[in-house]
């Protein structure tokens, strides 16, 4: 299924969700957000034998490079097949060209086991069929190499939706389930260190088996079927969630694992599904939860009572707003999100105070007007807006760090709060 279909389908299923406590502001204008290609920056670090080949333009190559910025030191496992005049004017057969470029990639990186052909706006507009290309290339280079495709194009995906599209494609590679008892799959790419922490917690609770998706290596894609119970670790995985359900897997809905409360509630959802006794659950969770609370207390002193304005970026905004409000006593003014997946984040939104403006989509100029008028103590926004707002005297936090650094779970709760506390503290410190 293409991402376009999934998007359409998501639109159909959305109204069925619970009613929201707040009205949603929807404005149409310039959207100052990344496209789904950006996800490659963290996905290629996560899946260590995967390679991401964007089929796109020089702009696409430049985007990834600019977003990756300071993060990439080793030879990256991503690249762009830049389309040129010849490819568009019909002077070269784009499929032959693609095969040639793929051969070049494989020659350089024979260790690759999973290749993603990633569609972009130009490849979508000229209707280059990457799913056929993926099938052809799988047949040619398989079975050691598997080739998948998804679209990270800006006309179809916003920032983190690229990961959603990538994981959706990857579900196709999940083996047929052999398990006869329920087993847990955690869905959404997490830093290895966070994964290991969660794994320890689940095993201490006595869960028989826990898998993470995406896996670190392509061969370790977990089996998916009716015995699968899955927990989303990220709120932007609507299409992936749907695809897993299509395979018979059952979703465990919960708030997302940010902060002491979010993490507890998230773990609780798994514990309930696997009938872990409250006594066991509490004894396993208590130490981490207490550590998280202690770590948060320090930052609460800095942040409590302060107002916060969130620009749309990663779809993590409702979860962050919940965390900032519930666990750090901040006052959310506006919570923007590029796309509001009501089904997935209703538990976060229902915990927000009344009076919060919830906005979906963007007209960046008008949103900036609202932000300036509100004079928030902290603004969470993208890299393009941060310095201009700082120049106007507002303290800002770049939202991109929320997807690039470890922020999930008990032991990152303090770090997560620190991301927000630092700009506020800095504003108070500087005398220049």
């Amino acid at each position, binding site marked *: 299924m293409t991402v376009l279909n999934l998007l359409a389908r998501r639109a159909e299923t959305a109204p069925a969700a619970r009613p929201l406590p707040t009205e949603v502001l929807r404005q149409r204008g310039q959207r100052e*957000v990344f496209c789904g290609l950006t996800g490659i920056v963290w996905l290629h670090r996560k899946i260590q034998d995967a390679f991401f080949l964007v089929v796109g333009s020089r702009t696409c190559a430049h985007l990834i490079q*600019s977003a990756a910025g300071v993060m990439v*030191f080793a030879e*990256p496992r991503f690249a762009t097949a830049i389309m040129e005049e010849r490819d*568009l004017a019909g002077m070269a057969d*784009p499929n032959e060209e693609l095969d040639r470029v793929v051969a070049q990639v494989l020659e350089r990186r024979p260790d690759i086991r999973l290749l993603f052909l990633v569609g972009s706006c130009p490849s979508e507009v000229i209707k280059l069929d990457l799913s056929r290309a993926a099938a052809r290339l799988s047949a040619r280079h398989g079975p050691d190499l598997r080739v998948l495709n998804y679209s990270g194009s800006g006309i179809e995906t916003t920032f983190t939706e690229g990961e959603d599209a990538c994981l959706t494609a990857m579900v196709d590679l999940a083996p047929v389930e052999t398990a006869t008892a329920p087993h847990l799959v955690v869905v959404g790419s997490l830093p290895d260190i966070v994964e290991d922490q969660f794994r320890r917690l689940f095993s201490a609770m006595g869960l028989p088996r826990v898998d993470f998706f995406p896996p670190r290596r392509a061969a370790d894609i977990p089996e998916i079927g009716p015995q699968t119970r899955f927990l989303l670790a990220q709120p932007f995985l609507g299409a992936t969630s749907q695809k897993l359900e299509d395979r018979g897997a059952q979703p465990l809905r919960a708030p997302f694992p940010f902060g002491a409360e979010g993490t507890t509630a998230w773990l609780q959802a798994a514990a309930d599904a696997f009938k872990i006794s409250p006594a066991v659950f509490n004894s396993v969770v208590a130490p981490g939860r207490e550590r998280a609370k202690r770590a948060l207390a320090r930052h609460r002193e800095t942040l409590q009572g302060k107002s916060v304005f969130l620009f749309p970026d990663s779809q993590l905004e409702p979860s962050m707003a919940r965390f900032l409000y519930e666990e750090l006593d901040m006052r959310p003014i506006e919570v923007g999100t590029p796309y509001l997946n009501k089904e997935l984040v209703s538990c976060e939104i229902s915990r927000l105070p009344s009076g919060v403006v919830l906005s979906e989509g963007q007209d960046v100029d008008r949103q900036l007007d609202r932000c300036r008028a509100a004079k928030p103590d902290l603004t969470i926004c993208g*890299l393009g807006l941060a310095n201009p707002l700082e*120049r106007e005297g507002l303290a800002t936090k770049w939202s991109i760090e929320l997807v690039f650094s470890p922020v999930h779970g008990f032991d990152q709760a303090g770090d997560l709060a620190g991301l927000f506390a630092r700009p506020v503290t800095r504003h108070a410190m500087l005398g220049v």
Partner: protein
Amino acid sequence: MKLAVWTYEGPPHVGAMRVATAMKGVHYLLHAPQGDTYADLLFTMIERRGERPPVTYTTFQARDLGGDTADLFKDAARGAYERFLPQAMLVGASCTAELIQDDPGGLAKTLGLPIPVVPLELPSYQKKENWGASETFFQLVKRFAVKREGPAQGGAPRCNLLGPTALGFRHRDDVLEVTRLLGQLGFEVNVTAPLNATPADLARLGDADFNVVLYPEIAETAATWLEKNLGQPAIRTPPIGIGATRDFIAAVAALTGRDASALLHSMPSNQPWWSRSVDSTYLTGKRVFVFGDATHAIAAARIAREEMGFEVVGLGAYNREFAREVRAAAEHYGCPALITDDYLEVERTIADLQPELVLGTQMERHIAKRLNIACAVISAPAHVQDFPARYSPQMGFEGANVMFDTWVHPLVMGLEEHLLAMFRDDFEFNDHAGPSHLGHGGGKAVEPTVAVPPQAVTETVPATISWTSDAEAELIKIPFFVRGKARRNTEIFAERNGIFRIDVETIYDARSHFAR
């Protein structure tokens, strides 16, 4: 299709953004999908601009295709005009919008905006960032510049400085330095453009007696047009380095008939003496590899050879437009020329040449860091740390000082190099200590991890050559900053002499061979 890992230049509309962002009173309406807004961060994060670039993106989505993308464009143009009230508007398409052929220029015309609208045709699938900047500047100049009526006003002769843009490598400071230099010669700057110029300023370009092309990559097309249509001659010697600055002064003097001998005979820069003083002796013959945009690379090669006493072992540029000039310069220094925008090829070349210093862009800094070679940045593309708070031009006499300091800094200081060799067995002073001022990785013993693809290393040395453990142990005693070169030279020597097993003797034979 072309496989690209990292790119030196962005797409041409980013070049147009560099011009629009540099100017005042200009707004750029870009028909583009949402992801293309990433380009804003180049200006706000890398250059630390405190304002958003004056760009409105239409951010059309898949559901708009085949429907109302044209209306979306018109609404956005109208909205941007009303909100920002620019003096002029640039309109154009990014790569995706180019494919849907909405004709931004035509659409903008139907709006009847009360300001000049300059349509840009930037073919995204053929051209790149510098070309886009050059074309945009040219279109603006062509649209606004008018020929001077009547004779020149009295007073000091005037010139325009052409080429500085937003996100340019040290453009901010070069403009100050060159303005000062021209002031010393008795010239006034009429208009500097595009940096900080308004469309109204462009209309005054014709008031100048001549043009100074600071950055040919961006200003050459406009300067040629001004020469032909407004009769303004141009100075085309970028004053980067002592020699080039003196050439620049001489060229200006020759063009205007002014006497510049006083300035030519004085030496307002410390660089020549710093270079002649004995501490700099150790710089002699350091092998440098130079890569960047053609203008900066050619200038850096000349400084490296004539003003620092280095040996230029490779010279290259990523912009093909100036390939001829780069080849000529490389021939002059007797080294190979590398004209490519393929980062991997540059990486391979550096790995093969094993220079002691790389002068390049931020890409070469990454390569050099991996290979554990000293590096200084001399050209765009550059990263946030290459936009320093302090005044640090590349041009003029002060620019020469700045380059002396920034190039020498990453090299191991003369005295320190000596000490490292003397105390290499001292436990605190071994490789793993590293030179104290080597930036980021300093002190951490950054052995070049296997980031270089294996074939890059094995390419030139047959896999059949091996090292005895004694020889490996001996190699470790060689200071780390020359070890790569020693290993390579030894292997080349072994290969040429049919030696398959390198022992301690081979190392010293090779050393005496190459010392000749």
